[in-house]
């Protein structure tokens, strides 16, 4: 559905040195997929999103949504979009903003009041409906941004740029519960986030970008990689020597916990079986980092 083909974007400021924000991006996002984009600050995530919405044209390569240029696609169908910075006129009231956006989204007049009320209720905005945008806290404003992104339930593309930025933990959890029901066989959902845990929970695949380049795409389903080196924390009670035999190179972390590096689940389970056979009691074995975190750490250069 969404196709990046060797997409690049270079900013050429007047009289300044050209800055290459994105280079050589090639990947596709399928209908029905939730696709994450992760990367450190300045990695090029915002530029990618701006190109996806047609706010910026690629300076190299080709970017299409359903075989159309992004701007053409957006102008014909619209995209459910939450930007990192919620830009709504400060003097507008919340319900007014929603009605305006609903009008632009093409929601029929007859259905508008119901749809706006549904979303205000869904995002806990009913008590703020008559407040002006400038009176809202950052988290509430973010929820207004989210509500307007969900106005048209027929859109085939949804883009969330740092969707939980400014949200409190409760609403962060609510957002995570809100995304799965948005899945449709004919809809692609893109989430750009610093929050790897969030992407790991929500996305099917996550593109890790760094310094404007796609470093790797991590499959989140069947997530534990069979080839990548992964570190686990093992809590145990028993012989330290047995641990070192089962997992050469294990590092003790405290008196009854150790960190081990293994290549995949087979090696981990073989080591654990050897420990149990030697009478060591295992109380837990958990990844030191999540799969995505681990991949992210490997992918993003240490000086980034």
């Amino acid at each position, binding site marked *: 559905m969404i196709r990046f083909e060797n997409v690049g974007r270079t900013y050429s400021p007047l009289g300044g040195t050209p800055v290459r924000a994105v280079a050589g991006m090639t990947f596709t996002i399928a209908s029905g997929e939730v696709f994450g984009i992760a990367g450190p600050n300045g990695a090029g995530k915002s530029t990618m999103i701006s190109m996806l919405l047609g706010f910026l044209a690629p300076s190299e390569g080709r970017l299409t949504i359903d075989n159309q240029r992004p701007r053409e696609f957006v102008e*014909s*169908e619209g995209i*459910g979009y939450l930007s990192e910075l*919620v830009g*709504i006129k400060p003097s507008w009231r919340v319900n007014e903003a929603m009605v*305006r956006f609903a009008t632009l*989204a093409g929601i029929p*007049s007859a259905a508008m009041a119901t749809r706006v009320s549904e979303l205000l209720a869904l995002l806990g905005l009913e008590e703020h409906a008559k407040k002006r945008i400038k009176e809202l806290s950052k988290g509430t404003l973010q929820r207004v941004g989210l509500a307007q992104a969900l106005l*048209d339930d027929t859109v085939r593309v949804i883009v969330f740029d740092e969707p939980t930025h400014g949200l409190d933990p409760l609403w962060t959890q609510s957002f995570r519960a809100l995304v799965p029901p948005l899945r449709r066989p004919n809809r692609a959902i893109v989430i750009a986030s610093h929050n790897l845990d969030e992407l790991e929970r929500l996305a099917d695949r996550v593109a890790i970008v760094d310094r404007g380049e796609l470093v790797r795409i991590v499959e989140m389903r069947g997530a534990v990689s069979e080839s990548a080196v992964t570190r686990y924390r093992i809590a145990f009670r028993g012989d330290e020597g047995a641990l070192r035999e089962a997992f050469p190179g294990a590092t003790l972390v405290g008196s009854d916990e150790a960190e081990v590096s293994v290549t995949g689940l087979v090696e981990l389970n073989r080591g654990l079986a050897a420990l149990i056979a030697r009478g060591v009691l295992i109380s837990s074995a958990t990844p030191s980092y999540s799969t995505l975190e681990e991949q992210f750490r490997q992918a993003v250069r240490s000086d980034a």
Partner: protein
Amino acid sequence: MKARLGGYAGWQLRDFVFERAAAITIVGALFVWMVHENLNEGSARLIAAGGREALAFGARVIAQHLGFVWFLGGLIAVHGISANDRTTGRFRFLFAKPVSVLRYYAQAFALHGAGFMICNAICLAALTRLVPISGPTMKDALIVLVTSYVLVGGIGFLFSAIWRFDWLASVATFGAVLYLAAEFPGAAWLQLLPPFWKISQQIELIRTVDPVEGKTLIAVAAYGVACFLLGLIILKRRPLAT
């Protein structure tokens, strides 16, 4: 779904009323108030006597009024028309919806023009309570105002498509053109510049109770329309995000 841009016109007009109409009306009303304060006994006798002299007096007042409002009012009506959305990031939610950028701003331009005319009509109506104004003079005044909006608005629209400080560019262009037109009257290259001085010439015709020149006004309006269209082309080609 397709955007209901026509349905959004009401909101654009509402924005105009709350953000610009008051300023335009205040500029006009200020002049009306000055006329009210400066009508002396001689003027009152002239108005009371009626006839051609009274209408000539009214024409002079309306010409002064036009001179006062045509550029400033047009500038207020269009400044930042597209640049404000870009610089504040408001374009992101607006144009993620199935909305044509060009249609959105073209509609705003037309609505701001209508609003500009309504504000000025209110001020002219107030002026008619103070001085007698003939039908032809009023008609000419309205034609000059429409033309001035197309010119000033078109140039402002073009600058707004290019730069965030469009009002500054408009004011600088206005000042430079009037200076050049005064220094080099009749120079052929002046025809390439925004014909602000031609609006002043038409206002002068109103002052002397002569009919305005249709061909000149059409040429002035054509210049404004060309700038507006160029602005649309730039909006089509330029990135919304920077």
